[in-house]
């Protein structure tokens, strides 16, 4: 099965999972039909560390959704303000 490329964007302390010069952003190639859940496994994030997942700027609540080529996936731990 062919691979697809997505852009993962990690924020706040989740960035510790990537080298600091990447500023939390990494383009990765993954197998087609991987889901948000699979991606989290791949990057090493536990679900309880997550507060918001956005794909192309739209919040997702169902982490079983498959990713598509070119998706911009933003993952935020529990943070917020006002």
């Amino acid at each position, binding site marked *: 099965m062919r691979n697809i490329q997505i852009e993962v*964007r990690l*924020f*706040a*302390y989740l*960035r510790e999972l990537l080298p600091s010069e990447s*500023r*939390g952003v990494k383009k990765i190639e993954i197998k087609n039909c991987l889901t948000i859940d699979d991606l989290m496994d791949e990057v090493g994030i536990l679900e309880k560390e997550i*507060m*918001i997942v*956005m794909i*192309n*700027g*739209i*919040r997702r*609540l169902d982490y079983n959704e498959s990713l598509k080529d070119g998706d911009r996936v*933003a993952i*935020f*731990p*529990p*943070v*917020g*303000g*006002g």
Partner: protein
Amino acid sequence: MKICRIDMSTKSISFEEVKEEYVGLGGRGLTSRIISDEVDATSHPLGKNNKLVIAPGLFAGTLAPSSGRLSVGTKSPLTGGIKESNAGGTAAQSLAKLGYKAVIIENKPKNQELNLIKITPEGITIEDASYLKMKGNYEVGNILREKHGEKVTVMSLGQAGEMRLTAASIAVTDPEGRPTRHCGRGGTGAVLGSKGIKAIVIDPGKENKVEYHNIDNFRAAARNFSKSVLAHPVSGQGLPAYGTAVLVNILNEAGGLPTDNFREGRFEFAENISGETMFETIEKRKGQTTHACHPGCIMRCSQVYNDKKGDYLTGGFEYETIWAFGSHCHIKDLDSIAKMDKMCDDFGVDTIDTGVAVGVAMEGGYLEFGDDKGAIKLLEEIGKGSPIGRIIGNGAAFTGQAFGTERVPVVKRQALPAYDPRSVKGQGVTYATTPMGADHTAGYAVTSNILGVGGVVDPLKKDGQVELSRNLQIATAVLDSLGFCIFVAFPILDDETAFPEVANMINSKYNTNFDINEILAGGQEVLKLEKAFNQRAGITKAQDRLPEFFKEEAVAPHNVTFDFTDEELDKTLEF
């Protein structure tokens, strides 16, 4: 508890017992009530018939966590309507410890004067303060602490308040004595300036006059409530670690970070001005990433930001400020933005209205978008009191008129804050309908729209937004009356045990028997009063609207407009 009246025409000071109807009111509930009861809504905001009411919240000085917000209420010279603006810092707790429920400043001197009000356990005095003329808040604080003691709280005006500009704020010192906390919105500083007052020094002394009907019950409820605050991921972990600036990246991802005067929803340099970058910069320069704006705050979203040399530059550096001088003006240098934050604190102007005004001046061709050096120079003019400085210091609406541009993001002449109303629609409903003029805190729909706190409401769709904004506006009126920091809303929205503990605290302090619904009904009453005042002042439904470009221009990346009908908006506060 007592209420004090200061008449600035005769320089007389009187004290009164709290009227029965005012006993259960505090903070915004009390300021809006007194303004509504005592000020003719058609008065000129800078004239002798307007008043300025300063009131700690109902929980000020108590064991309740994060309850030290100070409300200032008046008829706003910016919006022409009723205004409550609240700030952290130590003033509310100091006033509550001295037994003050409110201080009402009325009338005005015949000639231009500068006075100092001193509030101590011995009483209240009025002194000449002409030696502080056209000094900024930082210097004023230093001089007054040297004269009156290191421990005093200082509320003061910078140059902008003295000049009675409509974006003028009232600064309140933090525990370190820095003027970083402001009643920022709506030009309350101009009203204090019109009364001939430059500063208020509060020395709480040693004795604490805060009383409880049943302190043991209060303590137990406060302890449980604190647990909820600390257990919630946003108020317990997110805010202390990253402050509010973490929202830069969140809103940027969500396409709701207004950029180039609300042309785009994402900023290509968001990372440069993000909370993450700020956090690293503060750590590297040995500032403080976590700081409480008043003792007893357990969420501690504030911080101390040092310059490149490691010396103090600014504090209380918030998301909305970073946005206003940052993406709104296409400025990507965090140090320049920090410098402008400091200048606003020093000159005493609202960072939101001033930052938006700078972007509007860019829109009008006065300087280029992205020109941080030019923006800093422009702000310096406020401190000098030059004509262009006065234009900017009067805020975004006035600046738009001065430069002949129609693209001015304001409601009721008050500048929109840092969330695009098209892509965070619940926020747009609040901007349009709150009696305060565009204000994010009045009904912070970002919670359900973006953060997933208090349920989920799709930020790009209209469904559920009016109801969301209504409920949040009512709850906020309650929190503003109690003196709570608005961020306790995060646990209240998600943890159903939290609000009942608030009721327990009210009942055990004031010997009442309110249930949650009665407390929320009190919030509705505040909004009703405020709306009625605005109506008497000539503010009608026609002003409960966003500028038309939000309806006509779609904003990227989601290409959405603000598509509510007038009838839908009018339902928001129909009760």
